[in-house]
């Protein structure tokens, strides 16, 4: 650390910082803001779904007339918000929070590193992500508005619809940022571990980041290629994805034709299915840490979980076309992806089983982060189970592209990933600021959120079974959807409740930063190296390079007088 000697200016310290902790916090604040923006969009959309054609309260008057004429959301506005909600939540919200924020902040201190391997590249990764995000949001101001072809952006729709060019440019930024980050993570894990920190002594969170980095590195380039090809179709009128004989609104489209429509879907899902595991593995690592700490015993099946994560990562590249069973792809090919999809469910079951069995024999402390971690287990269970009828080709004929799909993946990403990430905030907040978040507000946040989330998502599974298609601007325009309308109302009311239950969290976060209860460097009595350095850790993290003597979860060690035996403690001390 060459900067050690001299005083850093404000800009060097907080804005263009090369310190992984500052970058992690930048990522965290930015991604939470994007999550809030994406959530506000879905609230506006949900109002339209529950009460179609009525004036949106509060937001109705603020939205421009092209979007919501007379305060009533229009179909173009709905489609723009739909595409942007998905894009923002996945690429600007959850991934940067899971990888950029937690990975950056926690992973180096857990392996005993002074910083990431390439601090400047780390800074660059954030400063490519932020402009990409701002560019994405600014696309609402473009003539014709933002992208409106869904977050999947299937051509030819995305090529002929307005708004897509900025979306594609912004995606190139975001992908670049993720690629820079993933290379940095891999090198850091491989090269900067403290002495004694063998790979098999790394905490599961570090393993999850390490495995995730490989997924990002291998999955994003095909999407980058697809985005650039689509951009070329839009801007240069090439025909990579444009077929022969296209007639749009009665007129022959100005394309040479000969392109392959399905090619884009293959390229997209080759990224986007592994991406699902990018969304879920880091939160999985987070809750493993929380559960180990709060059960006061070693995790069950540490190595099994690492192997499970590795096999999920490897298998995730072989299942992409289960999103395409009905796309017109050969039905014979579907059988292959059906089998691989069934196989990939096994390591996921193994991960859950290991965490459940970790509770056996424990002494469970129901702290706020532990509540979030525990709720992850049954909720992710629902997410996984509802994936089963979607992964089986025959039942997918009926359920594909219905609300059942939306319910399924939101159970995985919202009640799963997002709850795990919230748990992570409560767990590592004392490390980040030297103060604890308020427990009572945390519990209100937890119970309110978990109930509201189920109130949003369970109705979606019901209307999905009724056969309601997704992405409908006005479900009541179709006869077979009328019966499910009360479910949309329930879902919308729950969504408003979920928004209200985030207020205690936001208040708690900023209030505790300055006025929270002061705590020492290891308030949870945890064993991993992140609890060995001061809170917050100084630049360079450790006063002297830590040495690691054992695995990560030595809780309730029989030869030790306390119920936690840190990784850096040389000898266990027998009880007196």
């Amino acid at each position, binding site marked *: 650390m060459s900067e050690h000697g001299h005083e850093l200016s404000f800009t060097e310290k907080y804005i263009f910082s090369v310190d992984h902790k500052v970058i992690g916090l930048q990522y965290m604040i930015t991604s939470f803001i994007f999550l809030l923006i994406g959530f506000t969009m879905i609230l506006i959309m949900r109002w339209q779904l529950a009460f179609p054609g009525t004036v949106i309260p509060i937001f109705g008057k603020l939205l421009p007339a092209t979007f919501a004429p007379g305060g009533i959301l229009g179909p173009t506005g709905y489609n723009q918000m739909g595409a942007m909600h998905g894009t923002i939540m996945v690429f600007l919200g959850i991934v940067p929070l899971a990888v950029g924020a937690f990975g950056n902040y926690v992973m180096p201190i857990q392996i005993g590193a002074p910083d990431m391997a390439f601090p400047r590249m780390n800074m660059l990764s954030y400063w490519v992500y932020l402009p990409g995000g701002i560019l994405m949001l600014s696309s609402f101001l473009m003539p014709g508005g933002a992208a409106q072809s869904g977050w999947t952006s299937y051509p030819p729709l995305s090529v002929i619809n307005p708004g897509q060019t900025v979306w594609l440019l912004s995606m190139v930024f975001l992908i670049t940022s993720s690629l820079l980050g993933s290379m940095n993570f891999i090198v850091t894990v491989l090269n900067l571990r403290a002495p004694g920190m063998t790979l098999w002594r790394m905490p599961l969170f570090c393993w999850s980041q390490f495995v995730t980095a490989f997924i990002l590195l291998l999955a994003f380039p095909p999407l980058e290629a697809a985005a650039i090809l689509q951009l070329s179709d839009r801007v240069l009128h090439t025909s990579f994805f444009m077929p022969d004989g296209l007639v749009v609104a*009665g007129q022959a489209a100005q394309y040479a034709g000969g392109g392959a429509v399905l090619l884009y879907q293959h390229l997209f899902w080759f990224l986007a299915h592994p991406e699902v595991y990018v969304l879920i593995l880091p939160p999985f690592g987070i809750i493993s840490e929380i559960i180990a700490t709060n059960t006061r015993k070693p995790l069950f099946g540490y190595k099994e979980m690492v192997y499970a994560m590795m096999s999920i990562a490897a298998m995730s590249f072989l299942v992409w076309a289960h999103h395409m069973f009905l796309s*017109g792809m050969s039905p014979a090919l579907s059988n292959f992806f059906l089998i691989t999809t069934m196989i990939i469910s096994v390591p996921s079951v193994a991960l859950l089983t290991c965490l459940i069995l970790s509770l056996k024999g424990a002494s469970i402390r129901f702290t706020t982060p532990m509540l979030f971690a525990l709720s992850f287990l049954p909720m992710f*269970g629902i997410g996984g189970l509802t994936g089963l009828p979607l992964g089986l080709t025959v039942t997918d004929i009926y359920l594909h592209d219905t609300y059942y799909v939306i319910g399924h993946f939101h159970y995985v990403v919202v009640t799963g990933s997002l709850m795990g990430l919230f748990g992570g905030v409560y767990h590592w907040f004392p490390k980040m600021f030297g103060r604890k978040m308020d427990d009572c507000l945390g519990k209100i946040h937890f119970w309110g959120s978990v109930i509201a989330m189920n109130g949003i998502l369970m109705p979606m599974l019901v209307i999905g079974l009724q056969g309601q298609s997704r992405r*409908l601007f006005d479900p009541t325009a179709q006869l077979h959807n009328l019966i499910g309308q009360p479910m949309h109302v329930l879902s919308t009311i729950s969504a408003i409740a979920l928004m209200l239950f985030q207020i205690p969290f936001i208040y708690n976060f900023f209030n505790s930063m300055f006025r929270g209860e002061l705590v020492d460097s290891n308030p949870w009595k945890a064993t991993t190296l992140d609890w060995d350095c001061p809170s917050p850790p100084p630049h360079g993290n450790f006063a002297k390079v830590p040495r690691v003597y054992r695995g990560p979860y030595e809780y309730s060690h029989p030869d030790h007088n306390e119920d936690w035996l840190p990784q850096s403690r040389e000898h266990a001390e027998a009880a007196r």
Partner: protein
Amino acid sequence: MGNYSWLLPVQASSFAARIDLGLWIIHAAMILIFVLWTIFFAYLLVAYRQRDGHKAERIHIDHWKSLAPDAAVLFFELSVVALYVIPTWSSLKMSLPDEKDSIVVNIVAEQFNWNVHYPGPDGKFGKRSAALIDFSNPLGIDPTDPAGADDFVTVNDMHFPVGKPVLARLSSKDVIHSFFIPAFRIKQDAVPGMVVPLWFEPTLEGDYEVTCAQLCGVGHAIMRADVKVQSRTDYDRWFASMAPVKKAGPSGATEEW
């Protein structure tokens, strides 16, 4: 509304019951797994909560035994795949009914309509060309082709006789749409540049709805069509009453819009 319930819609095609069987088996298994699992989870939370005089202990659990749930899930999934999914998928998607015994139609999706091209009494489709498309000839049927002289096209209104397989060649003029009749449990994407065959056999007379399941633009929500499943005589009467599609001017003359 009678066709739609709080759960699945009415079963109005020959394979609807087979698909529902799968849906029910899988959902029953899902609920069973979830309930058993939640009971065990709740028991662990209560039994091993932190309390005075209780200490965490390192219980040895046999690793091989812990793999039992994984093995059980895999066994269940592969049995469902082998005994139900692959046989059903093969009969639904990988084999088609004989053209001679079926009602054959071309279904052409566009923003935001479902066009159905019936071959007319001669049972032969006229040639189509994108260059001939205009308002009065939405599918561009070639007026010089005698096979197309008696063809007719309906828009957002399809009629099929009960108890006879329908073989549809699905395509799209502009973007990807998805042909979905909830009551028939049939869904297939309509992809521009491709012709995808699909079949179904209506088994229950009545009025049903086609919906578009793939986001196709501003009018995605209003992209729907009526399906009328009629008795053979009613269907034949309707079929005979349909006038052939009106021809636009000379071949290739597309009007300015």
